[in-house]
């Protein structure tokens, strides 16, 4: 489904990604763990074609995104939904307009009743109802904004959902809830998910496969059990910060 092959990226003289290779099969949840500034978000932005690699390639459903630009790239992105770290809801639009946005842009001229029904359907998947439709993002809590962002990512039935730090800044109950949402999106809708996170607990709850990103390369990669058993010193140190507390 998603193939990242020997991906290199530098910003000015600062190398961020140094030959990343990974593969995400359809229908699986793949989590990339790593500390702050390890290049996780840069990796994700390559996957959706927001960044161009210096070297290497990103292939989604057999289409190499790194070679596309303009309208072709815009069209190729239709398979994605993305939940951003800060939700990235359009603050000049209501919740309804936010969730309806990808739908209206994909099928211009679609009837308002149909759009409203689809938006409500996706909002109910994340346990929100009609009462939030006319609210603006500034009137919502952090957790609600994340849920609206997920509803927006799911509304056009994407094949792949990308989550950028979905649990950052959330309380434990909301974090647990967001983990449940990621699992529900996979199980109920069959989407392929890529999650970027530094939340070890959350990562081990939702992942089918895991990778630990350190200093621009993958220090460990495999199933959660394989990564937990990794002998890499950084991986052991990184994971011990959470597992030792348990």
């Amino acid at each position, binding site marked *: 489904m998603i193939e990242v092959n020997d991906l290199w990226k530098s910003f000015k003289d600062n190398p961020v990604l140094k030959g990343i290779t990974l593969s995400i099969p359809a229908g699986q949840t793949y989590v990339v763990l790593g500390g702050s500034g390890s290049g996780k978000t840069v990796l994700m932005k390559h996957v959706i074609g927001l960044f161009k690699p210096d070297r290497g390639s990103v292939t989604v459903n057999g289409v190499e995104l790194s070679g596309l630009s303009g309208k072709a790239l815009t069209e190729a992105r239709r398979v*994605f939904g993305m939940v951003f770290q800060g939700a990235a809801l*359009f603050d000049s639009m209501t919740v309804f307009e936010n969730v309806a946005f*990808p739908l209206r842009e994909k099928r211009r001229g679609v009837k308002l009743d149909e759009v409203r029904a689809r938006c409500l359907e996706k909002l109910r998947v994340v346990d929100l109802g009609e009462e939030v439709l006319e609210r603006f993002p500034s009137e919502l809590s952090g957790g609600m904004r994340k849920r609206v962002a997920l509803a927006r990512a799911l509304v056009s039935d994407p094949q792949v959902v990308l989550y950028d730090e979905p649990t950052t800044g959330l309380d434990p109950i909301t974090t647990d809830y967001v983990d449940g949402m990621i699992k529900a999106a996979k199980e109920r809708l069959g989407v392929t998910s890529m999650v970027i996170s530094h939340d070890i607990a959350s990562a081990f709850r939702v992942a089918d496969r895991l990778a630990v990103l350190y200093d621009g390369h993958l220090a460990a990669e495999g199933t959660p059990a394989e990564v937990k058993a990794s002998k890499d010193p950084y991986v052991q140190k990184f994971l011990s910060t959470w597992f030792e507390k348990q």
Partner: protein
Amino acid sequence: MRRLAAALEDFGQMLFFFLETLAWALRPPYRLELILSQMAFIGVGSMFIVGVTGTFTGMVLALQFGYAMKQFAADGYVGGSVAVALTRELAPVLTALMVTGRSGSAISTELGTMRVTEQIDAMDSMAVNPIQYLVVPRVIASVLMFPALTMLFNALGFAGAYVMGIYVSAIPEGPFLEHTRQIMAPADIWHGLWKALVFGLVVSVVTTWRGYSASGGSRGVGEGTTRAVVASSIGILVVDYAMTLVSVAR
């Protein structure tokens, strides 16, 4: 030397941004509702400030010209002189400067905030080109509304000059209007409107570019907005000089 190279690189990137905007403006979908919304913000929203500026500029010009020309018993020419100064020069330039301060800064801040809060990336990720959605409507609206606001400035400026000339400087109405008809030609109005159109393009491209390329959080947005207003204002004056030079040389 390094700063010059950085400035040239930045200018080159802005030119590419402008070309990309042109290319996206020609491709469907054409978002009429967004263009109308921006026309309301840039045009209707600026009517008050442009109207006040125009009226007072016309009044002051009439008083100053009247004071100077009375010494040569030529105060009958005040109306025509004010009309030419307004239509060819002051209306397009002052309108553009006022709209830059009001709408240009708002455009730059809005797009800059959208950039640093990842709203532009979000739009990109939803297969919606942000240049087509955010930049094209603002550029088209500016190109259409700057000339319209300039005409408002012309009308209210001349009305202000008429009131001051006739009722304060006691210039006879007949010579005031007759000399205006003789001195000012429709070409003067067209000259000012062409300038306004070009200013609209310059201001909208500069302010959208500064917002679109903002980085570094709220500080970066603030710096981007300041640079947008400064660069737009200088751009207006430089382009005004160039267009006036070409016009006079012809």
